[in-house]
Structures are given as structure tokens and as C-alpha cells.
């Protein structure tokens, strides 16, 4: 347990929000930026602290549990914070990605920087809250808290099509969030626990499970709610568009962390609470996930816009997560958690570097670049590493590989042949990944790019860009080399409450 | 057949419906307003009839209030209509549709 005299989780959530408030109240820009460093660093440090002190014996329960009333005790809502083995890795990942995104944002010198940092800090607070909440209501609440700045930031600082993108993003995500909320409320109401406390809900539903048909309805609701939020095919079209338009730090935090809400919701809430409802939906989920992997994979190949491509790639990779969820097993779910951490770090890195590329080329069109490695070898190295990680190449992407491997193993065990198209995704991602690296960095620059270089001399990655990149990359590689640092807590937690799910799970394919 | 409560009630409803129909149909604001008044009167008729047949006083007292309210309403309403006429020079509702869509 934490030796700190205060609640690390609450502080990790409150610190960025407090800094945001201070900025909103009119802190001068100089101090705002300095304080923003604190606001971004504190959650990351506290997350690492919690990781370090995470007790191995917190197997079925939670560590660092605290509870604060907010005035809705009549409904069983309270701010109950804590981490279990599933939440911990994501909490840490959220801290790290948030730190990197924050650092990148500070150096970006965006217009209206104060507002930008303020919104980003709110987002960071929300992200930390999502994974630290035991209370299901606050789980949702923090997600929304982080989501709102996303909309605004896409709209204000976004790129091409930002107006349409922001609108589409907002409407889609609101729909997803509303469906999820409906599902969560329904679970709350039907459980009879009169509490949104996940532990209470789990206990209540463990003792008296809901009727089978009800579980089916509710799981369906959550499936589409969470599905839209994680860009399940064919409800994904908001994602590439939104990410294509989003400012980099937002894309980093949303695609990297916030989007994991849905998958996390499946693993932490939907499956444990509705174990019997899940099996009737998993074939559909698996098929749609294959749609993510194969169809979106191929669509990704056809992209010319680098940022859209990264967006599509992230949509594609989400398919692995969904497929892992559909397996309804410790292995699948554990693989998904590993994969989420890996994917979060990777995709954040990719979005960041994509923007760095844009600053040097003045375009996202991959056919208007070329030869950038000659001028910016460090950027090239980072991008190549990130891209290889994202395509799951063991090495830089060792953690991605572990996640994918566990998912594939689970898919074969529960869905047989479906593992073939799933693994095929590995080939597909190699195709678009290398194509991107090749056309951006290798070969000769195009004439337009040369003309651009005349006006804007290309420099290599600056240190204030390198540091956030390094933070992400080092975390990714370190976790990849020693995955047990996160897989053991995951395994312990999942093994505690997944047997009930595995007991009723059926094979996805005959 | 003796005339009873039902007949008064039906008459009242008929007058009410007639007033409603007038409100639906007429284009002159003043006439519409008169039709509204007719509806109020129709209700008072029912009220008085109920009061009479149920043997309670409240209905009659209510009529008292209704009449007062109607008078006040008419005063304000006509003031509005007059003020509007001074700006628009019309009391036809199909010409008073600047606020729409």
C-alpha cells in the first residue's frame, strides 16, 4: 500500500483538474505553462508510484481504495477510487501518455495555448479518473469529462475538415456514450444492489444473476455503446476523420487512452456482470472485429493522408482488442489489456510523430513527401520504430506482440479458424506501415517537398519533441521486455473473477 | 322529457365547440378573441348548471372569478391588439405571421 500521506489516486485525478481551474481563473501564461508541467507530471508519477506499491495480494480486490460521498448516496453513487490488476496497467499508461501528450502540447506553441493546456489538463484528469474509478457511474462520468475537451479541441485546433469532423465525432461518441450509460443504468437498476459500486454490483449479480434474456439485451446495449466508442466496424467512420483532424495531443490522448474506455468497459464491467448474456453476442462481435481487422486493414492501405492512415490503423488494431474480448476468457481479456497498453503507447507515439512530420513537410499527403530521412534521421528512426511497434513486430513492438499473441492464442482456442484472418492482419499492417515509412522517409523528395524545403528548412526532431517520444518508447520497450510487470496483476485479477465467465462461454465458431 | 343537467351540459359543450370552431376558422383577431370569450361563457354555463344540480355553491363562486378574469384578459388582450394594429395596420392573423419558422 502506498506510503504517501494522501490518496494518490484522488490526487492524480485532481491535480490536472486543479491546474486547469487555476488556468481558467486567469493565471498568467508563464505560470500556466509551468504549472501545466506539474499537472501533467504528477499523474504520471503517482501512477508509477501506485504501480510500484501495487500489492501482489490484491488479487481479487482492489488496492488504494478510498471513497468520497458526492451527494448521491441515495442512488448508491459515490466517488470510490481504487485499482485492480486490470485497471493498474491502464492507469499507468494513461499517466504516461498524458505526460507525453502534455509535453508535446507545451512545446507545440499552439495558438491560445492556455486554453489548449487547460482543456488538455481536464482531459488528463478525466483519463486518470476513468481507470481509477470503482464506481461505475464515475467510470462513465470521467470518460465524458475527458471526452468533452476532445470535441472542443478538435473544433478549435483541428486541421482539415475540423468542423465536420468535430461534429461527427461528437455525435457518434455521444450516441455511444448514451447507449453505454443506458446499459450501465439498466444493470444498476436490475441488479437491485442499489449501488453503482462495481464491487457491490459484482457481488449482487454473482449471488443473483439477472435473467438470461435480460442479460442478452443489456449486453447488446453495451456492445453497441462501447462498440461505437472504440470504433467497432461499421460504426467507426468518426475515428479516422476525427483523428485526421484532431490536434496531435488530443489524438494521442483520445486514440491512445480514452478510446480504451470501451474495451476496458467490456472487460471490467460488461463481461463480469453479464456473463451469460455475452455468449450470444460474441459471434457477432467477432465478425465485426474481423471487419475492423481485414476490411479496415485494406482500407488503410489505400490511404494517402498520413494522419488518416494512422487513424485507420488505430481503428484496425482495435479489432484485435474486440476479438480478444469476444473470446470470453482470461487469456483473451488479459491479452486485450496488454494490447491496450501497448496500443495506447504506440498510437500516441505515431500521432505525435505524424504531427512532427507535418511540421517539416507542410503536408500530410504521403505522395508529396519523400526522402525525409536524409534531413531528419532521428525523426525517421523514431517513426520507423513506432510504426514497427504498431504492426506488432517483436522488438520495438514486443509488448504489442505479447498482446496480439495472447489474443491470437485465445482466438484459436475459442474461435478456431478466425485466427487466420486475424493473423493476416499482421501482414496487412506490415504493408501499409512500410509503405508509409518508405514514402515519407526514403527515396527522393518530391518537387513540391523540395520547394517547401526551400522556404522552410527541415530540421531534425528537436529535444522537446524527442523527450515525449522517448518517454513513450522507453515505456513501451521496457514493458515489452518484461511483460510480467503488468501481466501478473492482470492474470491475478482476471483469474479471480473470470472463471464464471469462462464457465458459460461458448465457442464463437462451430 | 324534462330538461336536466345533461341538456345544459350538452349545450355548454356545443357552445364550447362552436367557440373552438370559430377560433379555428376565423382570421380576424378580434373575432377570434370573441370566440374565446364564447368558450369561457360556455364553461360558465356548465359550471352554473353543475352548481345548480349538485347543490354546491363553489361553481357559482367560480363563475364570479371567471368573469373577472375574462374582463381583465379582454382588457389586456384588446390593448395588445390595438397596439399591434397601430404598428401593422391589420388584425388579420394571416398577415400577422412575421414570427415563423
Amino acid at each position, binding site marked *: 500500500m502506498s506510503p504517501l500521506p494522501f490518496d494518490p489516486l484522488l490526487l492524480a485525478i485532481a491535480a490536472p483538474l486543479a491546474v486547469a481551474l487555476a488556468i481558467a481563473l486567469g493565471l498568467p501564461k508563464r505560470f500556466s505553462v509551468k504549472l501545466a508541467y506539474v499537472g501533467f507530471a504528477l499523474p504520471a508519477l503517482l501512477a508509477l508510484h501506485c504501480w510500484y506499491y501495487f500489492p501482489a495480494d490484491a488479487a481479487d480486490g482492489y488496492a488504494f481504495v478510498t471513497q468520497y460521498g458526492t451527494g448521491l448516496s441515495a442512488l448508491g453513487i459515490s466517488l470510490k477510487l481504487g485499482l485492480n490488476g486490470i485497471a493498474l496497467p491502464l492507469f499507468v499508461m494513461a499517466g504516461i501518455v498524458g505526460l507525453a501528450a502534455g509535453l508535446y502540447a507545451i512545446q507545440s506553441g499552439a495558438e491560445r495555448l492556455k486554453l489548449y493546456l487547460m482543456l488538455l489538463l481536464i482531459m488528463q484528469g478525466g483519463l486518470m479518473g476513468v481507470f481509477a474509478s470503482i464506481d461505475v457511474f464515475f467510470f462513465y462520468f470521467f470518460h465524458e469529462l475527458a471526452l468533452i475537451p476532445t470535441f472542443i479541441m478538435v473544433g478549435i485546433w483541428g486541421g482539415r475538415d475540423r468542423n465536420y469532423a468535430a461534429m461527427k465525432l461528437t455525435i457518434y461518441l455521444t450516441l455511444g456514450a448514451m447507449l453505454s450509460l443506458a446499459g450501465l443504468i439498466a444493470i444498476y437498476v436490475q441488479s437491485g444492489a442499489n449501488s453503482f459500486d462495481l464491487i457491490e454490483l459484482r457481488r449482487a449479480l454473482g449471488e443473483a444473476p439477472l435473467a438470461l434474456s435480460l442479460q442478452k439485451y443489456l449486453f447488446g446495449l453495451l456492445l453497441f455503446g462501447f462498440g461505437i466508442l472504440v470504433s467497432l466496424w461499421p460504426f467507426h467512420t468518426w475515428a479516422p476523420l476525427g483523428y485526421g483532424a484532431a490536434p496531435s495531443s488530443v489524438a494521442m490522448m483520445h486514440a491512445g487512452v480514452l478510446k480504451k474506455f470501451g474495451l476496458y468497459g467490456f472487460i471490467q464491467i460488461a463481461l463480469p456482470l453479464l456473463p451469460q448474456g455475452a455468449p450470444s453476442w460474441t459471434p457477432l462481435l467477432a465478425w465485426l472485429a474481423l471487419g475492423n481487422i481485414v476490411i479496415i486493414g485494406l482500407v488503410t492501405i489505400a490511404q494517402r493522408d498520413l494522419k488518416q492512415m494512422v487513424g485507420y490503423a488505430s481503428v484496425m488494431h482495435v479489432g484485435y482488442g474486440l476479438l480478444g474480448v469476444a473470446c470470453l476468457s482470461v487469456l483473451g481479456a488479459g491479452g486485450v489489456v496488454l494490447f491496450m497498453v501497448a496500443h495506447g503507447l504506440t498510437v500516441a507515439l505515431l500521432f505525435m510523430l505524424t504531427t512532427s512530420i507535418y511540421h517539416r513537410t507542410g503536408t500530410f499527403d504521403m505522395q508529396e513527401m519523400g526522402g525525409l530521412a536524409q534531413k531528419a534521421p532521428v525523426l525517421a528512426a523514431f517513426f520507423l520504430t513506432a510504426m514497427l511497434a504498431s504492426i506488432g513486430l517483436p522488438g520495438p513492438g514486443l509488448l504489442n506482440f505479447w498482446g496480439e499473441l495472447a489474443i491470437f492464442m485465445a482466438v484459436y482456442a475459442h474461435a478456431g479458424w478466425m485466427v487466420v484472418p486475424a493473423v493476416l492482419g499482421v501482414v496487412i499492417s506490415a504493408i501499409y506501415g512500410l509503405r508509409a515509412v518508405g514514402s515519407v522517409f526514403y527515396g527522393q523528395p518530391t518537387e513540391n517537398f523540395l520547394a517547401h524545403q526551400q522556404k522552410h528548412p527541415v530540421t531534425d526532431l528537436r529535444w522537446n519533441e524527442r523527450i515525449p517520444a522517448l518517454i513513450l518508447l522507453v515505456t513501451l520497450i521496457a514493458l515489452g521486455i518484461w511483460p510480467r510487470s503488468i501481466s501478473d496483476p492482470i492474470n491475478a485479477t482476471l483469474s479471480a473473477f473470470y472463471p464464471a465467465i469462462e464457465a458459460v462461454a461458448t465457442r464463437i465458431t462451430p | 322529457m324534462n330538461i336536466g343537467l345533461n341538456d345544459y351540459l*350538452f349545450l355548454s359543450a356545443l357552445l364550447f365547440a362552436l367557440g373552438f370552431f370559430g377560433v379555428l*376558422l376565423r382570421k*380576424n383577431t*378580434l373575432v377570434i378573441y370573441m370566440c374565446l370569450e364564447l368558450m369561457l*361563457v360556455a364553461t360558465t354555463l356548465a359550471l352554473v348548471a353543475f352548481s345548480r344540480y349538485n347543490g354546491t355553491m363553489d361553481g357559482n363562486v367560480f363563475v364570479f372569478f371567471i368573469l*373577472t378574469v375574462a374582463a381583465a384578459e379582454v382588457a389586456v388582450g*384588446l390593448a395588445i391588439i*390595438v397596439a399591434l394594429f397601430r404598428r401593422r395596420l391589420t388584425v388579420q392573423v394571416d398577415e400577422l405571421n412575421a414570427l415563423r419558422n
Partner: protein
Amino acid sequence: MTADLLFYIFSTFTLACALAMVVHRNAVNAALCFLLALVGVAGLFVLLEAYLLAVLLIFVYAGAVVALFLFIVMLLDVKGGRRSNFTKSTLVAGTGAAALLAVGLLSLHTHGRITATLPAGPGVGASLKGYAYQLFTTYLLPVQIVGFMLLIAMLGVIVLSKRHAGMEDVK
């Protein structure tokens, strides 16, 4: 029987006047019809032994309200004939509405019959005292409210109608 006959007379008269009011093109005539209809209703009030109310109706409604209407109609000098003929759509809608209203009336008449009623005894509304007692005891609060209502109505009419110094006023 006299009462019944009177009822028929009054009710027919009232209905006829009301109908004339609703359909008459000229607003002045409509107002006059309204006046007559009110007289009919007052007659019915008398049949219902609500004498005070009948008098009030004539005073307040016929005397004040309709007079006000007439006054305004004439003041505004609206040419009643200016109203355009009914267009086809209004005709259809009007017919539909009339049909709906008729259906409503019919169903009210058939389903809503009050079967058990007291034989008409001495009417409670006949006594002036009753009104006074009620208004000054039980319904004192509404009376006070109505007082305030009249106050604001008066203020409102002033605000809406009075020419204020320094205000640009159209025409």
C-alpha cells in the same frame, strides 16, 4: 314545462347567435351576435336560478366586454368584408375540424350522460349572501389574487397603450 320551453327558446337563441357570431363576416355584426348570445346565456342562468350571475354576465360581459370589443372594432375600422374567401385547404381543414368536434360532442353526449342527478331543489345560487360569505371567507385568498391581477392588467394596459414621453412612437 315552462322552464323546459324557456330552455329550448334560450338555448336555440344562444346557439343561433353564437353560430352567427362564428360565421359572420363582419366583425361588428359578430360582436353584436355575441352580445345576443350572452343575453341568451343570461337567460339560461336565470333558469338555473343564478340570478346574480345572470346580472353580472350582462353587466360585465355584455356591458363591458362586448362594448369594449365593439368600441375597438369600430376604432380599428376593420373592414369585415376584407376577409378572403375560404381557400380549399381551410375548407377541408375546417370540415375535418368540425367533424372532429362533432364526434367529440357526440361521444360526450353518449358516454358522458350523467344518469343520476338530484331533482332540482331550491338553487344554491339564488342567495346573494352565499356569494358574499364564500368570497370573504373561503375564497378570500383568490379574491386578493384577483385584485393583484386586475392591478397588473391595468398597469399592462397602460404600458401597452399610453404614449410615454421620450419614446419614439410609430404614427
